[in-house]
């Protein structure tokens, strides 16, 4: 245990408040966009999703990055632990999302084209 206490931790208070400012600004931007819903963003579609939704998702991941890296102190962990955590999650979640959304879209088409009657 000796090496644990031997570490001299300096205060990161300033950095914490900076991250708080970043997270707040990003949340405010999200809320403002969510209320205004600028037309050129909602009407422009990129990879079958509106630009606005892409912005929301990217900003969310940006926030998640700061929470994980700064608050959960992932940046201070060893590379091995960090990769074990981040890549496991990213790989499995992307796979899950891809499969389920593709399937959901397919069922939507089946309903829409009337192959299955469901609204009696």
């Amino acid at each position, binding site marked *: *245990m000796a090496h644990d206490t031997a570490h001299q931790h300096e205060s990161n208070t300033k950095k*914490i408040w900076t*991250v708080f400012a970043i997270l707040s600004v990003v949340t405010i931007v999200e809320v403002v966009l969510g209320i205004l819903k600028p037309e050129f963003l909602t009407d422009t579609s990129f990879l079958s999703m509106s630009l606005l*939704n892409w912005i929301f998702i990217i900003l969310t991941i940006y926030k998640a990055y700061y*929470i994980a890296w700064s608050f*959960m102190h992932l940046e201070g962990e060893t590379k*091995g632990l960090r990769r074990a955590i981040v890549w496991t999650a990213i790989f*499995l*979640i992307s796979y899950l999302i891809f499969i389920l959304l593709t399937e959901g879209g397919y069922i939507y088409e089946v309903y829409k084209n009337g192959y299955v009657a469901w609204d009696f």
Partner: protein
Amino acid sequence: MEATVVRTGTEGKTWGGGNEPLKSSYGKMMMWFFIVSDALTFSGFLAAYGFSRFKFMDSWPIADEVFNHFPFLHGVDAPMYYVALMTFILIFSSVTMVLAVDAGHQLKKGKVTFYMFLTIIGGIIFLGSQAWEWKNFINGTYGAVYTEGGNILQFIDGDGHRVALSDIAIAEASSRVEHESRNGIWYESEKSLPSYSIGEVKAGFSENSDLLIRTQVVNDEGEKIILSREESIAKLNSEAVGVVEGANLTRNEYGPPLFADFFFFITGFHGFHVFSGVVINIIIFFNVILGTYERRKNYEMVEKVGLYWHFVDLVWVFVFTFFYLV
């Protein structure tokens, strides 16, 4: 200790034992393992939500119309503000948590106590806000009728404003009384009856020529399709079978039943995490006050509950996006 160590010739090598390859203590690593598996659980729920949403792509409720309440602003349309406030509360309690961890590194007991206290208060405020959000969601605002196929029909006036059932229905003397278990066989009871019967709503609708029906189907512009007066009357008389006010797990006045189911399940599961986080924080808070970690000269326990608390915040960031923004 030294005397009992068996020499294997691999000392100093990464897997030779006696060292920590990932330079992380056992407890912290196990907390990370738990967080990763819990993150996968939450992504399972959110992906299932995405699946159902894609499945009902053109009839999913518009979040701004569902979550538009703000305390003390009754009847004011305030989309997003309340949930933004909740997000701030949770992010801020995350900040106080990380400040507590930071103070713990410097072995400052007083500061740790203070910041832990603020974190707990933040968590409790968030839980209260969540409860208020649920209350509004469950009670509903306007009410709607449902069709035999399970679709929701909402009412609007000529200006496109939503109209509540109470403004439409013409009350009749009703003979229908709620069946309670004490009046009959003890194991049979029914859910509380809606304030108006479908007959009263139909009668009121045909009286007031201003009213129209808004279906749950979304057009290309992202707006719900509104029927003409003739179509509305035909639709209401031929298809509407019941009245729904607010939301439960079977029906809701907003749209497909799955919408309310996922709302209850995911925000409920998250709320349960917040609740258990608050409980764990309180336990650690008292340990800090009692000086347990002061005597250990190590505040790592605060760091570990901190990890869990930040994770709860992290999940909320995603719930916020997928329920309220996208």
